[in-house]
């Protein structure tokens, strides 16, 4: 092969690699670590790309990972803290998928990952998913309400309340209404656990004697 031929081949290969590389980088949504972006250092970018790649391979929502990393940047957290956060989120999303099933939507997975972060267990998620009526209903709102209540009520206490409501096919609007009522009564001085339980009884099935 002549020198000219080698040069031509090298140029063609370099052009093709550059075109494909930039397109793939855009496709993977690596906005934080785009060329010229200095918001994350090199080591953090490597870890970030690895987590994004893992999420993609596991068919988990990558936008949740991106959002978490952006939150870290916005709060001026250091690289290791951001890496730890996105790795934990990846683990939670994977565990959520295992608990809710392969057909769970991205929104459900994100809400379930938040629930795990707030103290729910994978078993709790599986129990709630199994209790849902109909089985195909979205769990996003119930799990978000669960996370919001868990800020004031112990998770162990609030799980049964949400489970009853799911079994009673309570609508998303009623879940939100329930959450607002609980917050309002807590603001008036009510005991969070007692208030949450008492208000959820309205949705419990009436026992037949």
């Amino acid at each position, binding site marked *: 092969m002549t020198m000219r*031929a080698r040069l*031509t081949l090298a140029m063609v290969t370099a052009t093709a690699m550059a075109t494909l590389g930039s397109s793939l980088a855009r496709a993977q949504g690596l906005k934080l670590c785009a060329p010229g972006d200095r918001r994350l250092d090199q080591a953090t970018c490597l870890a970030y790309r690895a987590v994004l790649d893992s999420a993609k391979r596991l068919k988990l929502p990558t936008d949740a990972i991106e959002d*978490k990393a952006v939150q870290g940047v*916005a709060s001026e957290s250091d690289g290791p*803290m951001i890496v730890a956060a996105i790795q934990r989120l990846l683990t939670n999303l994977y565990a959520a998928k295992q608990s809710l099933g392969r057909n769970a939507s991205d929104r459900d997975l994100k*809400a379930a990952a938040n629930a795990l*972060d707030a103290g729910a267990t994978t078993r709790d998620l599986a129990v709630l998913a199994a209790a849902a009526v109909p089985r195909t209903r979205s769990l996003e709102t119930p799990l978000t309400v669960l*996370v919001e209540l868990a*800020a004031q009520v112990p998770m162990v206490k609030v799980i049964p309340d949400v489970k009853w409501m799911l079994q009673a096919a309570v609508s998303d609007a009623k879940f939100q209404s329930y*959450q607002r009522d609980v917050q309002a009564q807590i603001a008036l001085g009510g005991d969070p656990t007692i208030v949450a339980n008492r208000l959820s009884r309205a949705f419990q099935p009436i026992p037949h004697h």
Partner: protein
Amino acid sequence: MSDEHERIIDDVVHALRNDAPIEPMMDERVMTVVRGLPRHGRRHVLSRLTRPRNVMVSPLSWGLIAAGALFFAAGAGAMVSVVVRARAASRVAVADTAKSVTFTVVAPNATKVAVVGSFNRWGTLSPAAQMKHQGGGVWTTTVPVHVGAVEYSFVVDDSLWMADPTAPRVIDNDFGLPKSAIIITPDQ
């Protein structure tokens, strides 16, 4: 050359010009042998493809190969761009289901307040993030927010993060950010 040699050559030529006698079973015997030979298989094709050989390539051919490679790269790039555009289009579709949400916060001593969340990539620089002072320390802004669960915070004077006191708080175990969460439904 002697007459003897001339005669021998003539005899040979004469003998060669005569039709050779063929046995009656000749055709059948030949075909039997041919049918017994191994057939051309994939291994022969593979060995022909993998056998090293010298190939002469003209400068014009190199040019054609280079043009083909560029064409392939451009095609692959275009395909990836189409995928990216399709994803962007799906995001637009999500944005179409977005609802306008008005955020309000009371911050009497603030000179600047912004609302940040996943809807603006937690950036205070976007114009929609900047809240307007309505007087009496009340700050508001209306931004499009996608349907579903939304987490957000207020950033006062570019430094102080605060949760919405009128909305449920979300515990942030990662960065310790004070955050609130609301659920936007399509019928809101």
